[in-house]
């Protein structure tokens, strides 16, 4: 295995930890024991034996200890359990928003590059308009008119994140459609659809696909910002962004409420970006516009 492939594999494994945690969270962090006796007594409890929404007003703001490994928040909810469940929201929002953004960008980029002329100019104008608004402003303005929900957040983030993919696919399609091998295929009587899907897109899409990890990273950041402002998925869904907003009001105390979601966010985005770097086989270049 070449060093580049090994690096790619390491990066992929590191990133895959997060979807894995997201999938396993309901199993790992729950009040219901794994194995219970006939009388309902606990024989084997879950590793984190607290539901993310279980309020315990007797143990509000408990610092990390043996019972609550990472302490509890102002409602006595287990911080670790909420952080684990929060992975679900961030990972799902990141995956959905970046997939939608790439799909939209690829579709519009192909359309612009293949059709050219007036269609191309219209798409470019549309692209300029979306880029004229800072991503977060557009997402917030949209959230002002629609009821905050997970789906709305993902859709709005996708609507701001498609521009780079569109540019890449448009440039690729434009370059390829005049290549000799495309002309040759056209001469043999290949239909437009065949030319596009068999000869052009397989070469035009990969550069945009390689940016997926970066798009995912910035989608996760935007979603967290939206949740932080209280415009993401509504309570009681466990969310890193909202946990941080709640912890902000507890300052100067309760450091244990800030660090777990903060570090989780950081590592999710970091591993995603590392995966992107490994895809491109280089590090450190400014690859994506930051949200």
């Amino acid at each position, binding site marked *: 295995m070449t060093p580049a492939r090994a690096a790619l594999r390491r990066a992929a494994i590191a990133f895959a930890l997060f979807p894995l945690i997201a999938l396993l969270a309901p199993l790992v962090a729950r009040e219901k024991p794994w194995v219970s006796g006939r009388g309902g007594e606990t024989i084997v409890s879950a590793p984190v034996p607290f539901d993310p929404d279980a309020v315990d007003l007797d143990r509000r703001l408990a610092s990390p200890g043996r019972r609550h490994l990472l302490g509890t928040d102002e409602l006595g909810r287990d911080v670790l359990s909420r952080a684990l469940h929060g992975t679900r929201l961030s990972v799902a929002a990141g995956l959905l928003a970046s997939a939608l953004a790439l799909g939209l960008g690829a579709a519009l980029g192909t359309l612009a590059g293949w059709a050219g002329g007036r269609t191309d100019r219209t798409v470019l*104008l*549309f692209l*300029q*308009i*979306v*880029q*004229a*608004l*800072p*991503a*977060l*402003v*557009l997402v*917030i*303005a*949209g*959230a*002002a*008119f*629609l*009821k905050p929900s997970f789906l709305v957040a993902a859709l709005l983030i996708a609507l701001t994140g498609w521009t*780079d993919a569109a*540019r*890449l696919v448009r440039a690729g399609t434009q370059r390829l459609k005049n290549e000799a091998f495309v002309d040759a295929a056209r001469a043999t009587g290949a239909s437009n659809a065949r030319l596009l899907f068999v000869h052009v897109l397989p070469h035009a899409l990969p550069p945009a696909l390689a*940016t997926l990890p970066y798009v995912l*990273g910035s989608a996760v*950041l935007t979603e*967290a*910002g939206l949740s*932080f*402002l*209280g*415009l993401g998925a509504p309570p009681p869904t466990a969310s890193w962004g909202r946990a*941080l907003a709640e*912890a*902000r009001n507890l*300052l*100067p*105390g309760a*450091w244990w409420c*800030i*660090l777990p979601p*903060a570090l989780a*966010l*950081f*590592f999710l*985005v*970091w591993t995603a*970006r590392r995966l992107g770097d490994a895809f491109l086989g280089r*590090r*450190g*270049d*400014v*690859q*994506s*516009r*930051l*949200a």
Partner: protein
Amino acid sequence: MLRFALRRAASALLTLLGVLALVFGLVTAAPGDAAALAARAGGNRAVAISPEALAAFRHLYGLDRPLTERFLTWVWRAARLDFGRSLLDGQPVTLRVSRALPATLALNTAALLLATLIGVPLGVMAARRPGGRLDRISGFVCDALFSTPTFVLGLVFLLVFSGWLRVTPLFADTETGLRGFLLPVATLALASLALIARFVRVCVAAALADPAALAGRARGERPSEEIRRALRRSSSAFAAMGAVLVPSVVSGSILVERVFSLPGAGSLLAEAVFARDLPTVLALTWCSAVVVVAASLVADVVAAALDPRTAREDEVTVPGVAA
């Protein structure tokens, strides 16, 4: 050159008109009747509003007019900075926005200045020895900064400096003065610093690998002169970087203001969204679009002035960003 500037300005105006159309479309397409919302915003939500009152309200605000007429009226007013009155307290929106803007402008300007003052030298030093120790360390730090949401950085700063060390205030009110600005500026600057340092590093390293740099070295140029020429050759790309930087700083400052309770335009936006104060939301959206479009216009014209080749391309390409 002048023709290029004029053409770019025309395209910028078209873009702004498009932004207005997009925002206007959002408002009209949004679920919920604006009249009912506005009438309810002032008083008790439980009280039913008579259909006659709603109709009168619609007539008063011109909501019964055709869509195109409403759009044109709205564009005409937006061009004159008249965004109507806030649904929250009945004050003119322009007044509320202009009261919030100075704090935001000060925050953004200070952060960009600080980021440039540190980021450019850092990028140049890293570029002098690609793969060297400084390059690797700064690359790692910048990568980490790219992955940190701005508001998380701010929260951690608050925790450390205001919570544990108690050297800065917890809330950046007007009373705390400059001390309250320290952490917000540092937070916002760090996010842009990473972008600037990496960008400068990529551009300068490319310029130093250029045959022109080799020719200079063969002539016996001193290292400082070599760097100066490398910077000069990549200056048009730096102008383009400014256009990328501005929207990211604007986005970041919304969250930073929220984290530090700084009473600026970002806080106002968040507040207006919660109160469903649509006129204020629209005015702020419009403001940020004007800032971003103006920045990209200036960046393009400056880039073209520094390097006339960029004026000939249909769009300015930035090396390293979406090649």
